[in-house]
C-alpha cells in the first residue's frame, strides 16, 4: 500500500513538469504585451520599453526563460506578482482558504441533495419524481454559472432581500484572518452574529457553484443504483426479507458509491474551474478571481504559479479518491 502511494506520488512529478510547460507556453502564445498594457494609449519610448523587457527577463529566449523559471521552482520560489509585487505563494495561500471554503460548501450542497435525489429516482424509476429529477438535472448541468449566479442574486438578494449580494462577511464585522476560513474565523472571534453573517454570505455562491456537480451527482447516483439494483445479491438480500431501506442504504448504496465517488473526485477540478466565475460574480476573494485578474493583466508569474498550484491540488484530490476506493469497497485492494 505504501509503495503504491509512493509510486503514485512519484508519477505526479512528471505530470507537474508537464503542467508548468503547458502553462508557460500557453501564456506566451496568447497575444498581448504585459509592459505595453500598463502604458495604454500613452505608449512608451523604445529605450524604456527595452529596459523594462530586460528587467523582466523577456528579452531572453523562451527556453532560457523557462529554464530560469524551473530553476527557481526547484528552490521553491514561485516568483512575485508583476502587479502587486507580492510573492505568488503568499498570495495563493492567503486566498486559497476562501476557495476551499466555497468549493467544499458547493460540494456539500451537491452531495447532500444529489445522493438522495439520485437514489430516490432510481428506486422509483419511471415515476414522476424520477422524470422531474432528471429534467432538472439536465437543466442544472447546462446552466451557465455567470448567468445563474446573477439570477440568484437578483431573486434572493435584490427582490427578496434574504441573502447578501456579495462578499464573505458583512462589513459591520471585522474578523482577523486566523485560518482563512471565514466560518472558523468568525467562530473564533466570538463576535455575535458574525458566524451567521458568514454563513448567509456563503449560501448563494455555494448554490451557484454547486449546481452543476449536483446535477452530475444525482444522475450518476441514479444510474449506478439502477445497475446495482439489478444484481443478484440485491435479490438475495430482498429474498432474505431485509427491509427495503436496509437493502438500498447498505447493500445497494455501498456498491453504487464507487462510480459516484469517482465522479465527485473529478468534479473537484470542475469546481475549481467554476470557482473562477463564481468568485468573480460574488466578489469572493479566492484564487479563481485572482487568476482571472492575472489573465487580464498578463501577470505571468501569478498565472504560472497559480495554474501549477491549482493543478497540484486537483492531482492530490484525485490521488486521495483512488485511495478511498479501498475503504469504500473492500473488494478493491491496491496491488502490493
Amino acid at each position, binding site marked *: 500500500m505504501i509503495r503504491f502511494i509512493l509510486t503514485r506520488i512519484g508519477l505526479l512529478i512528471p505530470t507537474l513538469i508537464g503542467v508548468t510547460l503547458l502553462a508557460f507556453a500557453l501564456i506566451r502564445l496568447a*497575444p498581448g504585451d504585459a509592459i505595453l498594457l500598463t502604458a495604454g494609449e500613452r505608449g512608451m519610448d523604445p529605450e524604456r520599453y527595452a529596459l523594462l523587457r530586460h528587467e523582466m527577463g523577456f528579452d531572453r529566449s523562451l527556453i532560457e526563460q523557462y529554464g530560469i523559471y524551473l530553476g527557481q521552482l526547484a528552490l521553491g520560489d514561485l516568483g512575485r506578482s508583476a502587479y502587486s*509585487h507580492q510573492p505568488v505563494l503568499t498570495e495563493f495561500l492567503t486566498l486559497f482558504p476562501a476557495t476551499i471554503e466555497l468549493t467544499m460548501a458547493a460540494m456539500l450542497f451537491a452531495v447532500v441533495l444529489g445522493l438522495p435525489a439520485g437514489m430516490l429516482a432510481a428506486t422509483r424509476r419511471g415515476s414522476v419524481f424520477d422524470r422531474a429529477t432528471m429534467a432538472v438535472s439536465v437543466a442544472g448541468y447546462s446552466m451557465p454559472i455567470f448567468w445563474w449566479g446573477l439570477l440568484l442574486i437578483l431573486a434572493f438578494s435584490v427582490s427578496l432581500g434574504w441573502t447578501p449580494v456579495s462578499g464573505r462577511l*458583512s462589513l459591520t464585522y471585522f474578523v482577523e484572518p486566523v485560518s482563512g476560513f471565514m466560518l472558523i474565523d468568525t467562530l473564533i472571534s466570538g463576535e455575535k452574529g458574525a458566524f451567521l453573517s458568514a454563513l448567509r454570505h456563503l449560501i448563494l455562491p455555494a448554490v451557484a457553484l454547486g449546481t452543476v456537480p449536483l446535477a452530475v451527482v444525482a444522475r450518476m447516483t441514479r444510474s449506478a443504483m439502477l445497475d446495482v439494483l439489478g444484481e443478484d445479491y440485491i435479490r438475495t438480500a430482498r429474498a432474505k426479507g431485509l427491509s427495503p431501506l436496509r437493502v438500498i442504504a447498505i447493500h445497494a448504496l455501498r456498491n453504487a458509491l464507487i462510480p459516484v465517488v469517482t465522479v465527485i473526485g473529478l468534479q473537484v477540478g470542475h469546481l475549481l474551474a467554476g470557482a473562477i466565475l463564481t468568485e468573480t*460574480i*460574488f466578489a469572493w476573494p479566492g484564487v479563481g478571481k485572482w487568476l482571472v485578474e492575472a489573465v487580464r493583466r498578463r501577470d505571468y508569474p501569478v498565472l504560472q504559479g497559480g495554474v501549477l498550484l491549482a493543478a497540484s491540488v486537483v492531482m492530490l484530490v484525485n490521488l486521495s479518491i483512488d485511495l478511498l476506493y479501498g475503504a469504500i469497497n473492500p473488494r478493491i485492494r491496491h496491488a502490493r
Partner: protein
Amino acid sequence: MRSSLLVLGLTLALGCAGAAEAKTLIYCSEGSPEGFNPQFSTSGTTFDATSRPLYGRLVEFERDTTKIGPGLAESWTVSDDGTVYTFRLRRGVKFHSRAGFTPSRDFNADDVLFSFERAWKSDHPYHKVSGGNYEYFNSMGMARLLKSIVKVDDYTVRFTLTAPEAPFIANLGMDFASILSAEYADKMLVARTPEKVDQEPIGTGPFILVAYRKDSDIRYRANPDYWQGKAKIDDLVFAITPDAAVRYAKLRVGECHVMAVPNPADLDSMRRDPNIRLLSQEGLNIGYWAFNTTKKPFDDKRVRQALSFAVDKKAIVEAVYLGAGTPATNPIPPTIWSYNDALKDYPYDPDRAKKLLAEAGYPNGFETDLWAMPVSRAYNPNARRMAELIQADLAKVGVKANIVQYEWTEYLRRGAAGEHQTMLLGWISDNGDPDNFLHTLLGCDAAKDGTNRARWCFKPFDDLVVAAKRTPDIAKRTELYKQAQIVFKEEAPWFTVAHSVTYQPVRKEVIDYKISPLGLHVFYGVDIQ
C-alpha cells in the same frame, strides 16, 4: 443587510470608542489596488484607493474641475523664463501614525525631495524598492524635464527644469506626484523592511489606512489632523466587487453607497430607482478617428476634409454611445479651459465629400484600411460597431474601407509604429491641461513613433502649441490654444468623434458627491445622511 448598513459600527469593531454614531461610507470599487504606493501605478483603481484618500501633493485639483490650487505647497512662483519653480511649503501638516511608526516631525522639504528623487534618480536607495517601476513619472516626461530639485530651507523647495514647460504645475497635481514621508522611509530602511513604505502607507491625506484584505475590502478612517479639516464621514470602506451588475445589485439593496463604473445598459433603470441619484458629467476625453497623414491619400488635406464631410457623426454617436456621448468638434473636450466654442464642425454632406474627393484626384474614391480597437474604452465603448457605421458611410462616397483589428497591445504597438492608414483611438486626460491633448497627441514631437497617431507634423500648429508650453501665463496660453484649434479643424488630421459622458450612480443618502473630471473617485468632502 439593509438595516445593518445603517447601524454600521465599523469603528466599534476596530476597537475605537463612540462607534454607534460613526458615519460610514461604503464604495463598491472595481478591483484591488496594485499596492499602496501611487508612484508605481497608472491605473485609476489604484489612485482611488491610494493617492486620493491617503496622500497629498504639492498642488491639488479642485474636486470637480481641473483647476489647480494650493496643496502641500501654500504658494509658488515661476521665474520669467519659465524654468524655475519655487514652492513655499505649508507648515504644521501631520503625517499619519500607525502601529510601528509615529512621526516625530511635521511635513517638510525633505519629504518632497525624497518623493521625487525616489522616482527620478536610479541611484536613490529607494529607487529599486518594490519593483521600482515609475511608469507615469516617466511617461509624462518628468525624468527628461527635471534638471534639479533643491531644498532651499525646510519650507522652501526649488525645481529647475531643462526647458520651460507650463503644464509642469498640473503634473504635480497628478497621482504619481504624491508626497511620501522621508522619515518613515529612513526608519524602514534601517529596519531592513523598505517595502513596508509601499504596503503600509503613511501619507498626509484625509484618510488613514486601517486594514486591507486583498480582493475583499479596504478600510480607512478619517484623519483627524488633516490640514483641510477632518472629513465629514468617519469611516470609508471599499468593497471590492469586480462585476458591474453585482455592484449595481449591491447599490440597490444598500450594501454600498457609491459604485464604480456602471454598465451603460443599467443607466435607464438607475434613473428610475428612487433610492439612487445618477450624476453625470462630460468626461475629459476624446474619441477620434486618425488619418495617417504620412501616407497617401491622407497627405492631402482635401481627402481628410472629404472624409470629415462623408461620415454622419450624430448617427454614430447615438448608436455607439447610447446617450452617453456628445459629438466632438474640437480635439479637447468643452470642459477644458481654452476650448474654442466659436468653431463649427464639418456638417454631414456626402455631396461635398464627393466633390472634394474629385478635386483631390479621386473621383471614383479609393480603398483604405480602418483600424478598430478590440476593447471598450471610456471614450469609445464599441469601436467595432463605430467602424462598421463609418464603413457604410464611406461606401456612399465611393471609399471602400476594410476594417482591421488586432489584440489591444498589438494594436497600440502597430499604431504607434504608423502601420495603419486610418485608426480609431482616443485619449483620457492625465492632468486636465490642454497641452496634454494638443501637444501630446498632435505635436511634431509625438509624430514619429509616438502618441500622434495621425503622424501629423504641421508647423503652423506646432509653433502655437510649443509657444503655449513656454509661457506660464494662462491668458496667453488660452489664446494660443484657441488658434491652434482653428488650424486643427481646417487641416482635419482627425475626424473628432465624441466626448463620452461619465455617469456616477450614488445612493440618495450620499451628500455632495462630485464627479472628478479626471475619472477618479474622491471621498473627502462627501457626507452621508
